[in-house]
């Protein structure tokens, strides 16, 4: 999987947690809490979804690593690879 694939997968899970977000409007550096208005429960649900999809553990100290689509894509590629 390329970074682009990871980004797409991340956006897919993101919009599943927050169905009102239009993935085509999400910028690479949009912050999931500050810009996309996810709350802590949404973030936990997103982490859960990524955990289940990729089978990787995302400990709490790593949450900042998935705070934007570009950071998340890089993180997921690194952790899954």
């Amino acid at each position, binding site marked *: 999987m390329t970074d682009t694939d990871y980004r797409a997968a991340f956006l897919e899970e993101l919009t599943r947690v927050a169905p*009102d977000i239009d993935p085509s409007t999400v910028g690479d550096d949009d912050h999931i*809490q500050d810009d996309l*208005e996810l709350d802590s*429960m949404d973030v*936990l649900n997103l982490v859960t979804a990524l*955990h289940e999809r990729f089978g990787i553990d995302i400990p*709490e100290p790593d949450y900042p690593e998935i705070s934007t689509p570009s950071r998340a894509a890089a993180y997921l590629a690194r952790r899954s690879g």
Partner: protein
Amino acid sequence: MPSLGADMEAGKLVEWLVEPGDAVKRGDIVAVVETQKGAIEIEIFEEGTVHELVADLGQTLPVGAPLAVVLKEGEAPPEAPEPGEAPEPAAESAEAAPEPAKASAPEPTEAAPSGPAPAPRAVAASPAARVRAHELGIDLSTIRGTGPGGVIVMGDLEGQGRPAKKPAGPAEAAPTEKPASPMEEMRKAIAAAMTRAKQTIPHFYLSETIDVHPATEFLADLNADRPPTERVLLGALFVRATAKAAAKVKTMNGHHTDGAFHPSEAVNPGVAVALRGGGLVAPALMDALSLDLDETMAAMRDLVTRARAGRLRGSEMTQGTITVSSLGETGAEAMTGVIFPPQVALVGIGAPHERAWVVDGQVVPRSVVTLTMSADHRVSDGRQVARFIAEFETLIQAPESL
């Protein structure tokens, strides 16, 4: 049609989950009703057998109108009601989902003013219509009610008290006006409830900034080895601390109705959930004292998920006994909230901020939150609120006790 909030006038029946012949027991979900706050699952508070579904799908019914007839064991079916005829409010057998606890007449009457005057007859009006009539300076006794049993509802006030406006039901608004979107409807519902709160509840506020370092350390340890599905958020600790503190300081927990405070034995903290795109609901976490921390977290997750999906239950909309409104992990440091009637207190918790803090004589960086308690002066004074805050602080600083 149960009242699912102080300002609810009517609801639209969108789904039946039972049919005639089904056995039902207390707590069963029997129908889904569309309200300003989204679709709400209606529970029944009686046990028996569904005899007849009176209301049709798609029908909008005023609060108090019967939805179905349920017969208790051995009870004979009633004579068929005249179609369209308003039923006697204090009907004998169980209507689907009456107002829980106070089983008497369906909703409307705020009862006769208990003044000395031998009032010929109390005017029955829905709470929202009553408030509106007051705003417009209308004498309710001059209005003919069209609600069940002649109760005055909002629609009856149309064209009253103001210069000529053609009487029209809410359903037939001027064609040029766009129908209100669900978001606008929710905004209206919030406005009505909050206006009523500020008009009727003498709010007062006490604040305290609390060190949550022990709580965040506790959670970091707890969550380190857990998969995401089992992790606990700081918000769950806040709800636990609120429930336990409310159990001790009883003047914070209950309802103010009919001119008096009714403390509640159970603590059902309403958890304010911001809906994405705007709007807010505060469904109750039922009987929070019976849940441990993990169960509290699981219940909150479920509540938030259902709030977002629009599948809350009627009891969750009406039986909250105190509200917790937490701004989450990022955002402003303090919030002074509006009490959700008929409750008498709201715990507003700002987002944690890193601050220089004095611990054991040393200045150290600490994560702190500012708790602001909104309380009802008809029920409590500063002393009780201070006691609640002290309890909360003690609990949140010993998170393993939660």
